[in-house]
């Protein structure tokens, strides 16, 4: 298999998640719970994939669980207008505890969450979900910039009050964005577990959701750029595997590299005026 394909595979979970988070942030919602949502999706994909024997049912379950958890978070951050970081942190803890407990319960019964059915390959190493990635990124980029809905959604993240006076509902727009965020996170988490290794391990996302959040800033809130940023991080992940035992530098340096590069790029990118104006701020209609 050529490295390019491997890099694409490593990047895909991040790219899905970062694209979804871009949509969410454009509408003004910072989804800190992304890590937990991906983790739950990863668990769901493998356990349902194993139970039904169908990778498609596994991916569907991943998407359904991710959307459900996203919307639960959205209920708190968008409808109740609670602090977005607090609610997201709670969702992360919830998913970590839930999947960990389910995993432990399953292990006690002798079930193993590995050897799930594989997604069919269309070309060597290319499955339909991987193929879907550039298509969906394109859809997201087009939808955000070229459609009336995308305009309204972006406005909800910039000047929510203006959107309301134009007759849209900020709450509805943000909920839809949060749901789409869940859809993408579900694809990312499902692909990470079912797509790449056909197995689930405790806390297997290991920070990918958080890195994806950093990639949104890195990608200047543009889906294609976020994909490019994900490919860079994917290349670093690949390098880490490829360099194992072949480099005088300690392996931890390569493991740390994706986080380090993400941080350095954010520092260099500096104070951007690209961030949605109302990002992270709850919106409540004046009474």
């Amino acid at each position, binding site marked *: 298999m050529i490295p390019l394909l491997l890099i694409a595979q490593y990047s895909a979970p991040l790219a899905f998640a970062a694209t979804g988070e871009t949509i969410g942030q454009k509408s003004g919602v910072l989804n800190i719970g992304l890590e937990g949502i991906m983790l739950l999706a990863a668990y769901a994909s493998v356990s349902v994939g194993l139970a039904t024997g169908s990778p498609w049912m596994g991916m569907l379950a991943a998407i359904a669980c991710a959307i459900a958890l996203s919307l639960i978070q959205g209920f708190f951050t968008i409808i109740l207008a609670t602090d977005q970081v607090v609610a997201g942190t709670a969702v992360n803890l919830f998913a970590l*505890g839930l999947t960990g407990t389910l995993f432990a319960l399953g292990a006690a019964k002798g079930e193993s969450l590995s050897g799930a059915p594989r997604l069919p390959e269309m070309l060597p190493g290319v499955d339909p979900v991987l193929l879907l990635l550039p298509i969906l990124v394109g859809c997201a980029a087009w939808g955000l910039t070229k459609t009336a809905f995308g305009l309204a959604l972006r406005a909800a993240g910039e000047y929510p*009050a203006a959107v309301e006076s134009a007759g849209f509902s900020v709450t509805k727009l943000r909920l839809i964005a949060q749901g789409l965020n869940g859809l993408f996170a579900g694809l990312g988490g499902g692909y990470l577990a079912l797509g790449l290794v056909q197995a689930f391990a405790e806390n297997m996302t290991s920070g990918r959701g958080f890195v994806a959040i950093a990639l949104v*800033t890195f990608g200047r809130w543009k889906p294609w750029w976020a994909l490019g940023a994900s490919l860079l991080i994917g290349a670093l992940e690949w390098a880490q595997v490829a360099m194992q035992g072949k480099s005088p530098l300690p392996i931890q340096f390569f493991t740390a590299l994706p986080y380090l590069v993400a941080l350095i790029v954010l520092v260099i990118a500096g*104070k951007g005026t690209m961030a949605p104006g109302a990002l992270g701020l709850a919106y409540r209609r004046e009474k």
Partner: protein
Amino acid sequence: MKQAVRLGLQGLAIMAGLVAVLFLTFAAFGQDPVFGVRTIFLGAFGDAQGISRTLVRATPLLLAGLGVVVAWRAGMYNIGGEGQYVLGGIGGAMIAKLLGGAAPAALGPMILICGVLFGASVAALAAWLQVKRGVQVVVSTILMNFLALELMEYLLRGPLQERKKQLFVTDTLPNEAMLMRFGAQTDLHFGIVIALISAIGVAIYLYLTKAGLQLRIVGDNPSAARANKIPADAVQIRAMAISGGLCGLAGAVDYAGLTGRLADGFSQNWGFIAIPVALMGALNPIATIFSATYFGALFAGSEELKRTLPIGNTVVPLVQGVVVLAYIGFVTWMSRRKPVVGAEE
């Protein structure tokens, strides 16, 4: 007085809620809830061992929880408690290695100081990056968590590895360098006193000093801070330095009080779990004492649980997640009067 009664009632309600959530969690996983809650309770408070375990677990939770309180009250979402905790341990281990057995009696305090400095400097760096370069601390501190963990892993296989170079651990601290223990039978160490003193110190700082008042104004209402010519940037960097210092102290206290050495898995997510500890303590340093004790007990008790049931420590984050959501949902629902308008004016 009225406020104290209200806080007390709120505390009781939260306690009842916490037990209820625990109960429901067991039921949801098809386990006997009465047995589960009873096992946790006895494991946490059943005997001197249990109480000691509870307090030992509560110590890092309280210290790092206080760190979260200080940062979040200033409007800085420090999620890097985990990394700062680990760096606190690393700082302590470095000074221990550097001194190489000289002056063991002075080593204990020096470990704590180094832990504070390591945690404080990295948190202050994150704050500075937000203020000067616009890199949100929410994102940067998360990334720094992973960097700190990788750094520790590397150090344990390189410069800080034990003398025989066999295991991936540091040398064990000499007994004279360890924090005082309260008894030979239990692990309970002087760290709990340090944590309680820190809680009182943070309370005094936040509520009785001018710097604390400024910090709270900056966090509550940035435009009011600007109007009153409070240097918000400096206040936020200071708050992050204190926050990181407390999280670093948590790591150093665990190192010098409990483990005596660093190894993989040195932190069991203490810095991360401290966030809900602080939130359930309503970001109030005194209330955080109780919340840290509760979660310390939950941790200690769930260790006991692991011996009899297939579930163990994983119920802790689960319960925390549910409880935090229920709590913020309830609080927001109660206070829907105050309108918050989207963008900054």
